[in-house]
Each structure stands twice: as structure tokens, then as C-alpha cells.
């Protein structure tokens, strides 16, 4: 059913002038699916973000948000279904308080004040930002401003979230909060497409990995298999994150890549060993 498909790239190519940024890229993301977009800088990740948000249009091929073809719509129309956070999102805030900025999207889409308030509060709750809600965005660190921009995207309650390096510069506690907020949003049916270099974050939060290499799709498979095969990752400029590397080094059954699963397996195996 088309609507369960949140996003689809169909034979997409794109070039800036005569430089081909993407060639023949096709993949689909279902509602509720959590996808990591990986690859070296310059591999085409940011171009995919611009295509999904409708800032640029594919040539050849087409990009679908559910049953909408992005070629027919402007970014402000797509904003009803697509929540986006760009690489330098810390530069787009301007309200006097963080709360007011988070409400910018819903207000721009024309929701009544009561609805804007509800969405803003829920987004601030999801990211535990209440302590900073009345603060001036520029009294926060750039990384926290970016979390504020993420709250602004969540407040749109989109069916698809497209995020470019949402955890850049965040400490472990904030990264865990962002991870929880995104998983919770996915459980409510939203699809996630997250550009990141932070493979630990990807392992904790997402389930599928798409790797771009020089504008082409190099891999598209579950993260648990991808992140534990060092020889597949190396040519793509990637290295297995610590927990995946440990799973392989200790030959843990099931090769867990998430901390919770790895801790559970470690405890079980350690218990077994000390008993024998």
C-alpha cells in the first residue's frame, strides 16, 4: 500500500553543473522504519537530504514522499509530511525563547494556537528540553541549538524525519535523549532517515544502513550485519563502532551491536562461564 511507504527513490540521478553527485539511486523506506545514511563526506549524503526536502529535484528519476512526487511540490508544502534538520541547523533559530522557535513550524503551517502549544510541549518533552524552553537560543551551545531545531522538526509531527548529523557535538547523555526521542517517534509510525558519522549512535537508534560511495548505493542491509563486517566497511572509509567490534572480538552469540543487547549477552555468557 503506497502510504505505508514513507519514502521512495526511483532511479534518482543528480548533478551540480556537470559534476554528478548521485547516479541511479533507488531505495524505499517504510513507515516506522529507521534508516542510517552513511558514507564519506562528499559521497552524496547531503544531496539526498536536499532531494527529500524538495529543495532540489532529481534528474533523472523521481522521489516520492508517500504518494506525493516531490517534483510537484515546494518545500513548504512537503513540510506537512517531512520534518528536516540540516547540518548547520543551529544557524536557523531566531525567536527570543527556544519554545517560541520550536512552535515556528506548526504556526507557519497554520495550526491554531492551542494545537501549536500542544505540539511544542510534546516536542520539548520528547527531548527533555523543558529546562531550556524559556532560554534564548543563542545562550545555548550550538549543539543544543541543533537539538532545539530537532524539536522544531518533531513539532511538525511529520510522517518522515530526515536529519543531517543530529548528534554532532553532543555529549553521551544528550545523544541518548535524541536516540530515545527518535525511536519513540518511529514507534508512532514515522520513518527516520539519519545522515551520521556516529556509528555508535546509528547502532543504538537505527536498524538499517544505506552506504553511499561516490554517488552510488554501495550497501543497503541491516546494521547488525553491516557494522560487524570490518572488511566490508573499510573500503567505504568506515570502522566498526566499539560494541560491534567487541561483539566480533569476543565472538558473542548473535553479534549484538546495541549496548542493551550486548550487555545482556555479556552478562549471560559471563554467568555461564563462572558457573562452569
Amino acid at each position, binding site marked *: 500500500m503506497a502510504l505505508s511507504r514513507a519514502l521512495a527513490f526511483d532511479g534518482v540521478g543528480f548533478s551540480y553543473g556537470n559534476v554528478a553527485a548521485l547516479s541511479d539511486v533507488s531505495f524505499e523506506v517504510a513507515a516506522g522504519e529507521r534508516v542510517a545514511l552513511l558514507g*564519506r*563526506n*562528499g559521497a552524496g549524503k547531503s544531496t539526498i537530504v536536499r532531494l527529500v526536502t524538495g529543495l532540489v529535484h532529481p534528474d533523472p528519476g523521481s522521489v516520492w514522499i508517500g504518494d506525493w512526487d516531490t517534483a510537484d511540490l515546494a518545500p513548504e508544502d512537503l513540510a506537512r509530511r517531512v520534518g528536516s534538520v540540516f547540518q548547520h541547523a543551529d544557524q536557523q533559530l531566531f525567536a527570543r525563547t527556544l519554545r517560541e522557535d520550536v512552535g515556528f513550524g506548526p504556526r507557519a503551517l497554520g495550526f491554531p494556537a492551542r494545537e501549536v502549544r500542544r505540539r511544542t510541549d510534546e516536542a520539548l518533552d520528547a527531548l527533555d528540553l523543558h529546562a531550556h524552553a524559556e532560554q534564548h537560543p543563542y545562550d545555548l*551551545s*550550538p*549543539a*543544543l541549538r541543533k537539538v532545539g531545531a530537532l524539536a522544531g522538526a518533531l513539532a511538525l509531527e511529520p510522517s518522515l524525519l530526515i536529519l543531517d548529523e543530529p548528534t*554532532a*557535538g*553532543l*555529549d*553521551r*547523555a*544528550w545523544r*541518548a535523549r535524541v536516540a530515545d526521542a527518535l525511536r519513540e517517534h518511529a514507534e508512532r509510525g514515522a520513518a527516520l532517515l539519519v545522515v551520521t*558519522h556516529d*556509528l*555508535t549512535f546509528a547502532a543504538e537508534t537505527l536498524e538499517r544502513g544505506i552506504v553511499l560511495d561516490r554517488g552510488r548505493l554501495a550497501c543497503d542491509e541491516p546494521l547488525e550485519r553491516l557494522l560487524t563486517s570490518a572488511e566490508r566497511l573499510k573500503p567505504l*572509509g*568506515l*570502522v566498526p*563502532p*566499539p*560494541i560491534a*567490534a*567487541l561483539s566480533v*572480538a*569476543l565472538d558473542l552469540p548473535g553479534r549484538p551491536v546495541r*549496548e*542493551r543487547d*550486548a*550487555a*545482556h549477552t*555479556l*552478562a549471560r555468557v*559471563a554467568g555461564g562461564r563462572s558457573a562452569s
Partner: protein
Amino acid sequence: MRTLGLDDVTFWYPATANPALENITLDVGPGDIVALVGRGGAGASTLLLVAAGLAPRVTGGRLAGTVSRGARAGIVLPTPWTQLSGMAFTVWDEVAFGPANLGWPGHAISRHVDHALERLEIAPLASRDPASLSGGELQRVIIAGILAMDPDLVLLDEPTAELDPEGARAVWRLVRSLAGEGKAVLLATSDVDALPDVADRIVWLEQGSVRAMGEPSLLAEDALCEAGLGTTVAGLWRAAALPAPYPLTVVDAVQRWR
């Protein structure tokens, strides 16, 4: 002999009541690599600005305590695009901006600039316009611009922020080789997993004061893991409720496991 000495330093930003740094005492000697870790807003960036002599001189505000510094310090901030001189239209001139301001003779400038370009593996970019560079290339040009001034204290604030994993590994290798030459390095990073192979000493900052200081093994201690500042492997060991001391890295964990 210490290249940088902070003795009981407290610092207030202008028009703010509570201090950004409180009673900081820290020494960094030649060849040392000291890493500052802490939650967002713990004061690491402010401490680097104080060490570089930019706070309070440029930021304004008030400082108590004493800061003693060797000949010359260079700081690299996490936003490369604000660090360009704006007066150079080629990468070579950009890297030469610092030495030229110091009034060095022409031949000395050329020697230092060419050496710095080699160190950062950006010699092929020498005649490129800085505005046309990628985030990663720009970061290396800025670091080269600092190294070309031959500082004995190098200060780095989130040096790998704009880099992909390969670029980040190259910067960590460079930091080790700088210390190898006798330079003192003081850096702040949220990439804690990289520190065991890089830093000699870890300083844990919380709300502007030093909560703990010690060997890299500090990053496997329970209190740090609880604050979310331990390494991923230590955090995993703790989550699995396995006995302390927690292993610091994958290699430690494998040895401990056998």
C-alpha cells in the same frame, strides 16, 4: 618546566553572576597531551580561551588567579569557516597569514608554511581559494595556519567536529606527533572513545570546576560512566553489571575476557 600553568583560576563572562570557571589549577608541560571532558556547558571551551589568553582580553569579563604561558599559543576553534583570515585568496597565503603578522623574514615564512602544508597532507591545495574548500579541508588549513607559527602550546576545541571518521583519525595521529616534537597540547572533545590512544591525562570538568583528573583509565571509572563520559566499552561492562575495574578499550576487554 611547564608550558601552561593555571593556578586557582576563576573566570566570569561579562554580565553574568556565576563564574564559567571556578578554582582551576592545571599544568601542561612539553610533550603532554591533556584532554578536557565534560557535559555540554561544563566550561571546556572557556578554559581553552583562558589558556590562549583570549579570555578576558577579547571576550571581556573578569579573571581571578594566575595564568602563566610559554612563548606562543595557537588555538583552533570548532567552526573552521570563522577562522579564515579573510585576507588570503590562496591556501598558501592563508597559512602564511600568522607568520607574516609575526614579521618573520620571507624565507622563514616559506619554510614553515611548506612544512605545515606537508604535515597536514594539503600541499596540493596550496594555490586553491580557501572559500572553495570542503569542511574537512578547511579544518586542516586552519590547523596548518596555527602550526606554521611554531607554537609551543597547541589548543584544540573539538578538532574533529566537522570531519568524517578518516579525517578524524588523521587529526588524532597529528596530535600525537605534535606532542612527540615537544609541543604541549590541551584539547576538548566529545569523542571520548578516541582518547585512550591519544591523551596522557584526562581532566573531568563539571559546572566549571575540576571534578577529577588522572590517567586515561579515568574514562573507565564508575562515576564517569554514570555521567555518560566513560568510553563505550566501559559503559557496556557497567551495563552488564560485570565487576570493576571496567576495561577501557576493546583491546583491554578482549584481554580481560580471556
